């Protein structure tokens, strides 16, 4: 286990370095952000002055060297717009995104897995049809459309829930449901198709033949075997949620990392984009690492030679 972890950690560092370098290159290749920081009627001399102050007139390799040098000290440089260390801004927004992502993931799994299981138990029935239809619709609806729709219904018409912001737990409901709905559909579909396959396996028939109740068969045997696929999807979903909560966070004015990243990209705030991408990559890698470790736990066959 120790060597496994060491190898994975080394890989993690490599991946993070690669991601950061890629972000660095792509950002600078898309043009320099000086013009966003000068007055509309600045003279050429003033634009040059600001460009020099921000260091964007240096050759790419020099900028990269500075970048790596600062990284070695854990310094992601200061945000160009907010004049605070970029990493501080990201850490401040991170809890909001984590909260939203985890709750959305929970909703997705709590709705999707049982939904898919129920459909799988009665393939071809009305329940199955409805569940499959909902799954299809859920994955086709654009997130922003669903979000606005939920706002119009639950906030404007019914006044049951707040429109946007993050002040109370009630504020978490609509954004989490919006995000969760899409992935619930995914989980439902995956669970259903996985279970349908598993339920025809020999060991399931044996379990039934042994006289075990249908529910025990389902919970103790069948679901365990689709668990690996579930975990993979959960890890991928979590990664997608971290980065893809951008739209939801914007609609619901949720002060998370996604919105911060979007603003930073629009205003070419390089340090902030780099810091955000780094943190997202970090959590995605961690989620994948956790998933890998869990395989060993869930499936005793993994890790054995």
């Amino acid at each position: 286990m120790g060597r496994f972890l060491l190898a994975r950690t080394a890989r993690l560092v490599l991946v993070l370095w690669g991601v950061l370098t890629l972000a660095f290159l792509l950002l600078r290749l898309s043009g320099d952000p000086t013009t966003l920081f000068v007055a509309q009627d600045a003279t050429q001399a003033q634009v040059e002055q600001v460009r020099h102050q921000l260091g964007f007139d240096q050759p790419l390799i020099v900028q990269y060297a500075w970048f790596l040098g600062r990284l070695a000290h854990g310094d992601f440089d200061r945000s160009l717009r907010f004049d605070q260390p970029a990493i501080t801004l990201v850490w401040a927004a991170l809890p909001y995104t984590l909260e939203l992502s985890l709750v959305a993931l929970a909703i997705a799994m709590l709705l999707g897995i049982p939904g898919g299981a129920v459909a799988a138990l009665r393939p071809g029935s009305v329940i199955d049809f409805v569940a499959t239809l909902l799954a299809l619709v859920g994955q086709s609806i654009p997130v922003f459309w669903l979000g606005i729709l939920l706002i119009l219904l639950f906030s404007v018409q019914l006044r049951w829930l707040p429109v946007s912001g993050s002040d109370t737990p009630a504020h978490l409901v609509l954004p989490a449901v919006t995000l969760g709905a899409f992935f619930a559909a995914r989980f439902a579909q995956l669970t259903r198709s996985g279970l349908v396959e598993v339920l025809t396996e020999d060991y399931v028939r044996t379990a039934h033949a042994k006289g075990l109740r249908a529910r025990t068969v389902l919970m103790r045997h069948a679901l365990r075997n689709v668990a690996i696929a579930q975990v993979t999807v959960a890890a991928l979903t979590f990664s997608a949620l971290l980065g893809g909560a951008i739209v939801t966070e914007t609609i619901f004015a949720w002060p998370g990392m996604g919105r911060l990243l979007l603003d930073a990209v629009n205003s070419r705030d390089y340090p902030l984009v780099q810091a955000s991408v780094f943190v997202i990559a970090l959590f995605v890698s961690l989620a994948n690492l956790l998933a890998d470790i869990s395989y060993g736990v869930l499936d005793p066959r993994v890790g054995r030679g």
Partner: protein
Amino acid sequence: MTVAVGAMPNAPDPDNEQSLLANAVYNLFYDTLVAKDPTGNSVPSLALSWTNDSPTSWTFKLRPNVVFHDGEPFNAQAVKYNFDRIRDPVVKASNGTRFTQVDTVTAVDDLTLRVDTKTPFANLLGTLAWLRIKAPKQLAERPVEFASTPAGTGPFQVTEWSQNNRVVLKAAASWHPASKVANIVVRHVPDDATRVASLQAGEVDLAYAVPIEQIDALKNVGLSIVTAPLGQSMVIEMRTVPDSPLKDVRVRKAIAEAIDIEGIIDGLVGGVARKLDGQPGGPDAFGYDPSIKPYPYDPKDAKALLAQAGVPNGFSIDYNTSVGRYLKDKEISEAVASQLAEVGIRVNIQPLESGVYLDRLFSGKMAPMFDIGLTYAPDMDLDNAFRVETTSNPVQQWADPQFDELYQQTTQAMAIDARKTAMQKASAYLHDQVAAVYLFQIPGVYGLGKKANGVSFRPDYSMLLDNLSQ
């Protein structure tokens, strides 16, 4: 009162902020030395009076008995600190470039300030709109406090500054008349639809930037909509610098007469924008010339002009449009293209993303025709608009020594009347030479709930709360 805005100022420090919308928040708790009246003339704010002792020297008499929100006294030393700070090369404030002509600032006594400039700086008064007066001791000695409760001299005091999330203010004891509003919360709601929904659900009392399409829907549910022109002109520039058919003034005049500005205002902007009078600013700008009349919509005359200019069958021309940067920018480019097609000019629209747009703008690489929102607020002075047309400007829109000379005169005419005359001459010249097609002043569209009834808006997005009905 709760207010929803689409974008917040980047920081409590206004010296680095370029966005006009930031004034919605800054004006609640910061003041400047002078303010502007609705016709662009400077009126007292923190400075009660001012004189020009020589073309390069100004003396300001300051308002007595003013205290910053953190208890510091407002005086000439505080203003000097602000002047020095915005120009400090260590601070690198982006708005410092506006004050490069200022040489030294001296506190003659507690309430008298002298500003010496390197060359005659006729637009000092307009530029002072960018020098929001911050509490010196707080900024210098307690930066952490400044970052969360910045102290100014305005009618409200910041009690919480939550980056990109919300700013909470309470009515402050200040030199301003007492406010009818006890508390203001400004919330960041970036999505248009969400902002409108917040207003409908009663979660906010005032929503900025209501989409034009939603105006009627909101009126139908009993909410009121207020529109007020911003100090920002929607303009289609016509470059004469790179070689193109636009070099001929008759061609430019033809384009101006082929565009139906009123049709665009009614069709695309809900009829709520004020048409520009053939010049880059409205009556709220210093330098506005009421005698200039815009070119009429006259496609027949446009065709005749094109024939005179030797291009009776029109020509092809590239047009760079921003997308989502200014109100209906892309839609306007499409309307303009179809209107110009009627007189034979085939417009090739090339949309540009914001970052690329700015890149090309500042490196002089725009297409021969391009849209721009010329912002003359908060200065409320046409100096900025004129500067874009000078030969030395990085946009490289125009290179006309005669205009450069006219512009030069506006920067050196110190007496108010002389300067106004000089600016009107420059406006008239731009009009005669058809440097651009001046469409309309971009409107601010605000949705008001019951509690906000009576709020009006200045051309820099800031709120006037004196006439609240409750």
